């Protein structure tokens, strides 16, 4: 039954017709393989996929880059060594102090290396975003399917819960909640450790982030459960668990994957925005959003400092969104044409 549905999905020009006179019989392909073939043919998808992969390699391989480059994000190169920054903290060399030693220049005032700050900032934002997306996808999937399949009271209460969560302004909540929560867990006179900050950031983003995918999946399940193959499974005595796992979930993989792919840049920008506002990761953890915030102060004096994180973020978000579109096209070509 589920196979029937997949072939419905995969009728977008994949018929592997052997040219007349060839010797090999046409090979059967699974939906995954078919999707991959479609993806491979999409130029925009390949390019954006490579760009995204590059960012991930940069973020995850930050310590390696630091080792190869010979610098770290924490040392105040410009402040400790005279002659790199002017009296008021602006890099003396043009273009933000780019030279053979500091490939992306120096940060004003403290003089940290911009390349290292950016690479580690990407790492921070990516790691947090990935963890949040993983939690949010798992949570949203479970709740969404439960709401859609069980219907009745469960659906009603879950729906109201989603409404309440969507009504609360999450950024304001975080602005108010963070200092209070940290005060509870930190002894007075001690700093809040990085893991605690990132844990609370992940928690708040997760609590407010699962609603999108839950709503989407609820809608999908509602339409799916009336389909003949589900009815047939139910009639033939399959348990709810089996229906959910074997009949519904494989058909939901497409929207789940697409939403997860589009959620990653959304989470990255949300985390960057929170750090921009000052309630995300604070100094000295390098952070993408905070770099952009600080760069805004130097628009007239050292705009080069802003261009690196700014352009990087633009490219990342555009690439990831294009990738999401390509993934959706590959998995479900009929979906939005």
């Amino acid at each position, binding site marked *: 039954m589920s196979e029937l549905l997949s072939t419905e999905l995969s009728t977008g020009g994949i018929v592997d017709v052997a040219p007349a006179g060839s010797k090999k019989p046409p090979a059967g392909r699974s939906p995954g393989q078919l999707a991959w073939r479609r993806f491979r043919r999409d130029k925009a998808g390949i390019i954006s996929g490579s760009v995204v992969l590059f960012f991930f390699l940069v973020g995850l391989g930050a310590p390696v880059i630091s080792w190869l480059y010979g610098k770290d994000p924490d040392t*105040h190169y410009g402040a400790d060594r005279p002659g790199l*920054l*002017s009296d*008021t*903290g602006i890099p003396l060399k*043009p273009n933000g102090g780019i030279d053979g030693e500091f490939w992306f220049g120096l940060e004003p005032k403290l003089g940290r290396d911009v390349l290292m700050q950016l690479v580690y900032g990407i790492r921070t934002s990516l790691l947090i975003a990935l963890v949040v997306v993983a939690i949010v996808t798992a949570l949203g999937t479970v709740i969404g399917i439960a709401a859609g399949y069980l219907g009745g009271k469960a659906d009603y209460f879950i729906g109201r819960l989603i409404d309440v969560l969507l009504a609360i302004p999450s950024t304001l909540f975080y602005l108010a909640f963070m200092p209070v929560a940290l005060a509870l867990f930190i002894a*007075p006179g001690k700093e809040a450790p990085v893991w605690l900050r990132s844990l609370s950031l992940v928690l708040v983003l997760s609590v407010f982030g699962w609603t999108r995918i839950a709503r989407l999946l609820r809608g999908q399940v509602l339409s799916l459960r009336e389909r003949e193959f589900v009815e047939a499974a139910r009639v033939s005595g399959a348990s709810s668990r089996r229906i959910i796992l074997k009949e519904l979930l494989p058909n939901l993989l497409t929207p789940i994957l697409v939403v997860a792919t589009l959620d990653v840049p959304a989470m990255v920008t949300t985390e960057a925005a929170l750090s921009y506002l000052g309630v995300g990761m604070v100094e000295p953890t390098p952070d993408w959003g905070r770099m952009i915030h600080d760069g805004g102060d130097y628009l007239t*004096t050292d705009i080069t400092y802003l261009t690196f994180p700014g352009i990087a973020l633009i490219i990342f978000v555009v690439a990831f969104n294009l990738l999401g579109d390509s993934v959706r096209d590959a998995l479900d070509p009929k979906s939005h044409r």
Partner: protein
Amino acid sequence: MKPKIILGVSTVVMLVVAGCSAGGQNTSSADAPKAEVSNVSVDKDGSQSKGPAAEIAGARKGGIITPLWRQDQTHYDPAQIQTSPDGTISELLERRLTMYKNVDGKTVLVGDLATNAGETTDGGKTWKFTLKDGIKYADGSPIVAADVKYAVARSFSTKYSRGFPYIQTWLAGTEEFSKFYPGPYEGGELSNDKVEAPDAKTVIFKFPEPRTDLPFAAALGTTVPVPQAKDTKEGLDQNPITSGPYKIASHEVDKSLTLVKNDQWDPNTDSIRHQYVDGFTFQFGPQIAEVTDRLSASAGNDKNSTSLYAAVAPERLDQVMNDPKVKPQILDQATSASEVYSINTQRITDLKVRKALLVAFPKEQARKTKGGPYAGDFSTTLGSPANAGWKKYDLPGITDVNPMGDPEKAKQMLTEAGKLGQSISLGYNQTPAGEKEGLAIADGLEKAGFKVEKIPMQPKTFNDSRDTVNNNLDLYWSSWAADWPTGVTVYPEIYDGRKIGDGRPNNSHFNDPAVNAEIDRILKITDITEQGAEFMKLDQKIMEQVPAIPYIYTRRQLMTGANIGGGSVDTHTVMNLNNLFIKS
């Protein structure tokens, strides 16, 4: 596909080209204003107190000026005002017994409502002020001596004692002056043994101890006259009774304040103020970056605007100070404030550790986050050069520390004291600038072998949190500007160990009985010059115990719009509103 590629590539190229920038520039030493050693004089004979005020070259009448400042005044009742920008606006609106006049870079304390800066024949125990002729309130009624006496009496009441407490404390002989006399609402008239107004033109202050600094204290809001019949009590905090060249036309709380000309003000009685412009419209709200940008551009009405107290944002300094069009709009002035990093001597009790902190402290790197040399010169003393009698002294090992910090030497000192790895809770202001400053300091201290915990503090409550006795911190920023240019309002407030308490300025919790006794002794000295010299010796004696790390003698850059003339900086380091005019 091709047009898309071209579009994509050209977008990226444009973004990259937009990111090119010229390099920074170092300040030239010719730019630095000299650290202002105190040059305040007192007009004892009244020769400088006679109106009208000298004309400013190029001044013309007319126009409206728009001062920009980030917040509304906390109080409008002069008896309750303590902060600098509030004081400046109040000094424009309400005249008081004495006031400061800036002439050719010199500051003179002259008589404002009084004919001179006060007369004493018994070494400062009794002070007599004679009011000028022809002084009136904004409603036309004459100002009489009884009104000054009533204003002083009113400031004893606990409700209105949020302002400066000096005159009340000195008259009562105790800091609990409200217990001595509860004010006119409950205690009747203030006794003639303390303040007497024998006729409409004479005010006499009688102190139990000699108070040579009374002329300075008389410039504060305590002596702004209030006629008893018109005392609206809390109402004075919205509608004070004014006598200056301008009066309040309207006030939208936290948004704007509009001042118009007061036609009852007689320029011939006022040697300080001018009435060039038709009025002022204060705009409250803009933060320093916005103020800097608007005044640099000076577009539209912004050319008739001025900063009130907002300094040039440190990130803009490089651009603004090197732009020949904008540079003339900037007033670069040394202030009377002295910044230190106070050490909590109740927690860091080992003098060797405090000395190691002093040696390791990276002043240069920390100051760079505040604007480098524009933030001020490095200080080596606790008091500011603006105080009378200031003189630089040399304490080997203390005043000759390396401004970039000496981590090796500090590490050695710590190891010898057996305190390597000493934990330091550094309290910093949680603003973007404060974070960077905190990082710079933590970096320097950690290199020296300290273990630094950076504790963020909210900007709004920074002073309150810091000035709590149990603040759980070891090292924090502190700044003090004397309320008038002698040491009388500095050392007895900040380093007297008997004055440790919540909300009090002795936030290093320094307590040395020998120093306390010295403070008492010096306060009795009647000659200002001798007293100044003795305070300087006290500064050195206190510094031997390193209760604080001297940081910066504050310098401030204030901006006017392109069309404003007569700009100068007053004694509070606020834009002097008395001489401003619109150029065209």
